[in-house]
């Protein structure tokens, strides 16, 4: 991190020691983006997560993992083996001047190394230790063997994703562990604010499962209030209704010329009269959905409409959507304030007019590869000081010199010895 960057970020001047693996990488990434000097600590041979693909130009190499690049941008990097006594002592020295320690080891592991919260807070009462695990530090499932898939499954979303005639399905790009990092960052910041007012650090205990449960919109409430278990209704907006009406299914994904689009086509009960009116107009104008003319969306009542009628309306709109591309529908949506979104893939994102015009793609230097790579931009624009997406993720031990030599004052011979012993 350059002097310039440090001055320009909200959280400049604070430091985090990042011991996480995939379960918590994003936490340090977020803190780093906000200006914290995040030091990613890896085992001397390099973190195993460097073996996770995809890879730069499909070359499997620990310094070419695109997964590592993305998750560990905005961090510096050192190597250190905290399982050795020397390693623990060096770590304790670093804790003295740190503000955050982030870790995602199994519950009890840090404690077993003599580096649990009580030990760390004795070294530095201001320290915030953020522990990110699938289920939390305590409880009946705390020692469960973790994986992305099983944690996601236990969070409730998987059951409701997919087709009724197939098994519940994951999001193919695993999501669960990102929530560990995300909520880890939230918890760290809440503890940080308290710490800055009182001088008191604390232990923040994050459950990835809870982070997943927080994504369920109103599904949990459907069970709590009505004892209805929402299931996989892929392709339909599903409204449970009491007898004699029975559940209502409204088409959700419509095929369009070059892919799919997802509109919400309904009336006053969802405040969507205007949107549906505009959509009806363009559909009728296209000449393929004449029967929709005169449909009164102000009188459209989802609690009493028949499934037959609903399906007939959807079929008519279906004919209209087939006449338009994703881009055309996006433009119509914006022009006419119609609630509908094309199903984008990553190529569509790259080609998005909106994202390019906003300067969303940020050039990140990779001098070791001899090029710059365009990364997704920050989630929030901040007026006073930007949310950073640079520098690129560290190389193995890239900042050992900066931290051990320059900061801690280790002579070169000592570093050589520590390296030979596998401590750094």
């Amino acid at each position: 991190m350059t002097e310039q960057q440090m001055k320009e970020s909200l959280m400049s001047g604070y430091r985090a020691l990042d011991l996480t693996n995939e379960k918590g990488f994003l936490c340090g990434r977020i803190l780093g983006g906000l200006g914290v000097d995040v030091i990613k600590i890896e085992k001397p041979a390099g973190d195993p997560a460097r073996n996770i693909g995809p890879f730069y130009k499909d070359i499997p190499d620990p310094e070419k993992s695109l997964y590592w690049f993305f998750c560990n941008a905005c961090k510096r990097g050192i190597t250190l083996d905290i399982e050795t006594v020397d390693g623990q002592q060096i770590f304790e020295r670093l804790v003295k001047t740190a503000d955050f320690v982030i870790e995602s080891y199994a519950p009890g592991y840090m404690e077993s190394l003599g580096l649990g919260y009580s030990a760390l807070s004795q070294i530095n009462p201001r320290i915030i230790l953020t522990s990110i695990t699938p289920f939390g530090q305590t409880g009946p499932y705390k020692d469960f063997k973790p994986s992305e898939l099983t944690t996601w499954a236990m969070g409730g979303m998987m059951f409701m994703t997919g087709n009724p005639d197939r098994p519940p399905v994951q999001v193919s790009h695993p999501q669960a562990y990102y929530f560990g990092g995300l909520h880890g960052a939230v918890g760290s910041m809440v503890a940080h604010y308290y710490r800055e007012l009182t001088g008191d650090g604390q232990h923040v205990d994050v459950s990835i499962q809870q982070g997943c449960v927080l994504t369920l919109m109103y599904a949990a409430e459907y069970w709590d209030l009505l004892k209805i278990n929402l299931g996989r209704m892929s392709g339909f907006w599903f409204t449970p209704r009491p007898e004699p009406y029975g559940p209502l299914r409204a088409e959700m994904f419509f095929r369009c010329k070059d892919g799919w689009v997802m509109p919400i086509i309904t009336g006053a009960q969802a405040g969507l009269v205007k949107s549906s009116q505009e959509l009806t107009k363009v559909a009728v104008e296209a000449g393929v959905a004449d029967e929709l003319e005169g449909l009164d969306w102000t009188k459209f009542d989802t609690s009493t409409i028949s499934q037959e009628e609903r399906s007939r309306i959807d079929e008519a709109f279906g004919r209209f959507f087939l006449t338009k591309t994703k881009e055309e529908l996006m433009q119509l949506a914006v022009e006419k304030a119609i609630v509908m979104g094309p199903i984008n893939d990553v190529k569509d994102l790259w080609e998005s007019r909106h994202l390019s015009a906003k300067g969303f793609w940020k050039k990140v230097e990779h001098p070791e590869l001899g090029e710059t790579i365009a990364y997704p931009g920050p989630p929030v624009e901040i007026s006073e000081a930007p949310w950073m997406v640079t520098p690129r993720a560290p190389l193995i031990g890239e900042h050992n010199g900066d931290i051990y030599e320059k900061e801690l004052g280790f002579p070169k011979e000592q570093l050589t010895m520590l390296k030979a012993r596998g401590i750094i």
Partner: protein
Amino acid sequence: MDRKQAFEGIKVADFSWAAVGPIVARELAEHGATVIHVESHRVPGLERLAGPFKGFKPGIDRGAFGMCYNTNKLGISLDLNKPKGQEVAKRLVKWADVMTDSMSPGTMAKWGLDYESARKIKPDIIYYSATLGGQYGPYAKFQGYGAQGAALAGMYSVTGWPDRSPAYIFGAYTDYIGPYFLVCALVAALDYRRRTGKGIYLDLSQWEAAINFLGPAILDYVVNGRIATRMGNRRPDAAPHSAYQCMGTDRWVAIAVHTDEEWKAFCKVIGEPEWTRDAKFATLLVRKRSEDELDKLVGEWTINHTPEEVMFQMQAAGVPAGVVQNCQDLFEDPQLKHRGHFQWLNHKVMGPVAHNAPAYQAFKTPCRLVKAGPCLGEDNRYVYKEILGYSDDDIADLLVEGVITTEADLPGLG
């Protein structure tokens, strides 16, 4: 100062609606901030119009949807379209440390309540806007919900089966990613202001935030030209890796075998049947080549067990496995109970309703869920009188003029 919660004394004027804006303010409310949530009977948000409704009976105060995003908040009703309403809002701005907005870009400006206007009233105000596409750009005016956000962000394109259309991730998926990024920035802004006295404007683009949850896949396209797509339940570096059907109706368990040790343990748990000794399943590499057959064979074992049996037996042997939980399971989940994830708060109309706790626990400054999401205008009397300092006569006038809205102002079905 004996402070029990992180954001005691912080005041938030919450003009946001639906999910994203309110969720950000909720995080502060759960940790002690005083948050006033502003709505209008004339334009009730989708979160009050959609269900689930208590007893299936619709009503703006009978739905659990939006209510759960407003834990601990004070709720008032106010018509911002009236000049007098904008004056009242300005009094709120003067009171507040933080101000929120999730209207279509330009709306708050129309009411004289955008950041520039708020700054004139309160120079150090921290102001956030939360929209799908952010405050500017060709598609800034795009109107949609989190469900559209997930479509735009590429989420459905990587969900589902290769031989089927993209699958819907239930709900409004990106609504539950963006706000948490914004909370981080918001708290950083609060700390920054504490140190420098400066206010800040924060602009969340939900779409752009969600793209960050596909980061590596984006880089794979940028660098390698590869378009990430749906893989069912597969994963390149694990097998077996899927959801398998169990005993019961629509009961499933997820199993993920990544390493040789896990495979050995897995085989032991299922009783080392003949097929596990077949050379075509001996290594990860070969299992990937016969994965359809593998999944079928695993399913033939799981179908004779409940998902809980599979989970516990596998976990006892060190194999990652987890019940594919439905919502009923979540409420019965002993780990979630241990974490106190669902907490029942007494709603004035609905009675006890489950609210979600945050995903983290900060023991010195615990969250406290004390007040159910408010009915529309529930706290009018308290807020207008005690906090904003209006007299009884003022309040009566505001009611008569329709500035403070009531149930009489609700839009009919037509």
